[in-house]
């Protein structure tokens, strides 16, 4: 490939080189997919293809330039391919959404530019912060930052979309979803906790992480934004499960959290049945009136998942329309101009994508999300050998991206209770998009350092070289 440094020179035989690296193909396949979307959009509506071309030109440049840069620095090109393919899919979808569904906002290429700027600042920020991350005070600083986000939202938060949650603040006419920052705080918190110079005991880790967990729980309840908390909930459990020592206390703790979750859902059902007559009669007391919205939300979400026809024109409407769209999608997208899909630009982005581009590409997106998880996981495993802090950051980021994607996709397809959140790469939402880009950039940057430089006399290996992962 032109511009790609030959990685075959260092091998004596062509066969050996052949067996080693063809990862430049991930750049090529990304470019092909980006161009394919132009063709598909042209078939649907030529004017859409023209709009897409405005995005395609910078997209091709970015893919080619960054792809070459990362390839030449031995970064994980599979990961790069997945990120660029998902990004292209998101842009193609969002351009189509404006034409088909007429959402309240319009697609903006400028916002993608802002996300790139944020990505560079984030990388600089992380590289500066990295040196401090294993200081004990960082645990408390990230915890405090999380709490501060909720306090700011409780005081200054706004609800621009009328979803009943105050997860946004307005800055100079722009709305920023601050709850997304708690995900950055969470990733940094767990990295600091597990890589701290001050080695915490198991009990200490459980106590401090529980405190972080409850700060986020209370904060989410306070601003009525439960969706984001689910991501932190699973991040909390998975980090403890994977990175904490194997012991009885941890097992009991995790089982207790899971048990409490089941109990909470069960209690919500019981309380709903118990409080419903009083609610209908308008005789809820002040405590009941305070918890009623949460009880009702939990009851509705789980009930609708079990029986979508329970309230087809109310709480179940969104999912019912999604189900219709999925039935009509076929391999290459629906043919009946179906456009009655609510929030196609955000929560229902995956269903909208399948509805317009078909199940073949829809399943391909799932594979790309899985690719991110596998690449991130392998990178995390690889970094564990010499940089535990980076390993935790990588794993946290990977879990946050993959979990959020799958939770919303499965929820919008009515497989699990639906959480109204944006889908990484696919959904509109500048704040979240910026954070996803920042996370992706960090993953790619760290993937360039997956193999440590071994200094003379140094030893970073904790296993025989033959067992080391290629990344």
């Amino acid at each position, binding site marked *: 490939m032109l511009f790609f440094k030959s990685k075959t020179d260092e091998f004596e035989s062509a066969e050996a080189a052949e067996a080693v690296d063809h990862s430049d193909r991930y750049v090529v396949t990304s470019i092909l997919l980006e161009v394919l979307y132009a063709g598909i959009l042209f*078939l649907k*509506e030529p004017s859409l293809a023209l709009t897409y071309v405005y995005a395609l030109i910078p997209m091709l440049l970015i893919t080619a330039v960054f792809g070459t840069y990362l390839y030449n620095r031995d970064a994980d090109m599979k990961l790069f391919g997945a990120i660029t393919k998902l990004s292209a899919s998101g842009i193609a979808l969002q351009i189509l959404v404006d034409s088909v569904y007429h959402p309240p906002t319009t697609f903006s290429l400028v916002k993608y530019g802002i996300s790139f700027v944020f990505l560079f600042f984030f990388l600089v920020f992380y590289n500066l912060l990295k040196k401090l991350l294993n200081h004990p005070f960082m645990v408390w600083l990230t915890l405090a930052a999380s709490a501060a986000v909720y306090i700011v939202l409780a005081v200054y938060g706004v609800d621009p979309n009328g979803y009943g949650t105050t997860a946004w603040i307005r800055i100079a006419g722009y709305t920023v979803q601050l709850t997304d920052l708690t995900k950055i705080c969470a990733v940094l918190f767990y990295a600091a906790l597990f890589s701290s110079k001050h*080695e915490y005991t198991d009990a200490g880790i459980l106590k401090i992480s529980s405190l972080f967990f409850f700060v986020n729980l209370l904060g989410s309840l306070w601003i009525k934004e439960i969706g984001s908390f689910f991501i932190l909930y699973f991040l909390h459990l*998975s980090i403890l*499960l*994977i*990175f*904490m*020592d*194997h012991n009885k206390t941890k097992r009991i703790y995790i089982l207790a959290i899971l048990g409490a979750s089941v109990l909470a859902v069960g209690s919500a059902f019981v309380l709903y049945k118990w409080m419903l007559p009083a609610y209908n009669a308008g005789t809820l007391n002040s405590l009941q009136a305070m918890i009623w919205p949460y009880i009702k939300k939990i009851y509705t979400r789980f009930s609708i998942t079990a029986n979508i026809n329970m309230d087809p024109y109310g709480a179940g409407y969104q999912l019912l329309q999604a189900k*219709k769209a*999925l*039935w*009509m*999608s*076929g*391999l290459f997208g629906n*043919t*009946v*101009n*179906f456009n*009655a899909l609510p929030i196609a630009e955000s929560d229902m982005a995956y269903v909208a994508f399948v509805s317009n581009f078909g*199940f073949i590409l829809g*399943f391909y997106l*799932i*594979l790309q*999300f*899985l690719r991110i*998880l*596998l690449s991130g*996981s*392998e990178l*995390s*495993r690889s970094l*564990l*050998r010499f940089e*535990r802090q980076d390993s935790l950051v990588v*794993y946290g980021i990977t879990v946050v991206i*993959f979990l959020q994607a*799958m939770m919303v*996709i*499965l929820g919008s*397809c009515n*497989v699990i209770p639906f959480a109204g959140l944006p889908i990484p790469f696919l959904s509109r939402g500048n704040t979240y998009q910026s954070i996803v880009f920042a996370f992706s950039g960090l993953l790619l940057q760290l993937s360039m350092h997956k193999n440590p430089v071994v200094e003379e006399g140094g030893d970073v290996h*904790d*296993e025989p070289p033959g067992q080391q992962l290629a990344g």
Partner: protein
Amino acid sequence: MTNRRDNNSLAKSRIRIAELAAMAMCLLFTCGFGWKYIISPAVSSSARGTKNTITYDEVKGYAFEGDILDCDGAVIMSGYGNSHTAYAYEPECYSFSYLLGYYTVANGRENTYGLRGSLADRLLFYLDDDNKGATVSLTIDKGLQNYAYTSLLAGQEGSITVIDNKTGAIRCLTSRSTISYDVNDLESFLASDVPGAQFRRGTYENDPPGSTFKILTAAAAIEKAQQENLPDEFFLFNDAGTYTPEGSDWMITNWNDGVFGEIDLDTAFKNSVNCYFADLGIRIGQERLLKTAKAFRIGTDIEIPFLCTLHSKTDLGDGQPVTIAQTAFGQGNTEITPVHLALIAQAVANDGVMMHPYVVKSINSGNMPLYRHINSRIGRCISSSVDARLKELMHQAAENYGLYEGTYGMVYAKSGTAECANDRVHTYIVGFTEDASFCVSMNNGHASSELYWITQALVGYINQIYGR
């Protein structure tokens, strides 16, 4: 440090387990949704019904059914005012009704019949920018179809099929019944309680072929004679007007109790002598007779894309002479549809090669082609030499039916009168011109001679549309 190192090793294993769990989740999702939304609707009628019901309910308020055109692009059925369903004017609304059928959804169930039923996913669910369904072009000639329905089948119960000799394109497939089914009015179809009135006669009526089967018996005999170098005497028979197969007391008679004396194949075929063919069938043998029937795809399902599958059967039981004799002159246990008989004629017309029949030429949504038929052969039924001899026989028979060469050009035909269950009589004339093959089929008649004038008129019209 040692503890942290051990912990790292454990963490690596746990990450690997998490990877496997994620892969399993994605695999489950992909397989589950692929099965539910893609594979099931393709293989299960109930899943397809669910999908189409959902789609129909969603689009019925804004979608307009696509147009249906004939072979020359003339409109058979198209949009009408603000109506979301297409409309057919007279006489197309009657002459095409059993071919076009309907598509409705009621109480969560889809009801389908004919082309509109099987093509609902294109006519109703493949919309262009104006929310109009795809355009379906048929191979049918509108003028021929209307003429066959209004003039040739008027007051009768039966069907007329015309198939292009070279391509297998169905140029006419009209059916007339005891009810006047108007394709614009489903009630006119459902109101009837007359048994069998709702069948499309050409494709669903499975009756014995009558004397039209003698084409196959003759083909088998000619092939045997050619392969075994049999003398001309093989085809001679002394007809006494009756014939009793060995080992049975069932006596076969000729039509109208005719007695023909010593006759050869030409005379027997032209006069449709039952006793001759009963004897010839026994001399040919069960195996060869079955082989010829199989070669003409009797007993094999033949699909007409988007319309239906033709079923047929032949059964010589334990091979008793009486069963072979009955089958050889067109009774017995053989069952065949009129369209299949027209296909047999098409194979003879086409040098012994049967073509796949089709009625949908193409489907387009705007400029985008969705379907285009490609001509294909079902297979060779008989050799060219057998075919040439059969043509001689059928041409002589056609002259006997008033299809004179001087008037109609080269026409080849064979009539048939089948005795069916409940004393019902089914009459046929199958044949072909230089261009197209046909089968005129009539129920509740008395003799195939009643079809001569219809066939003559039909051949005249076929010659006209082919420019002869």
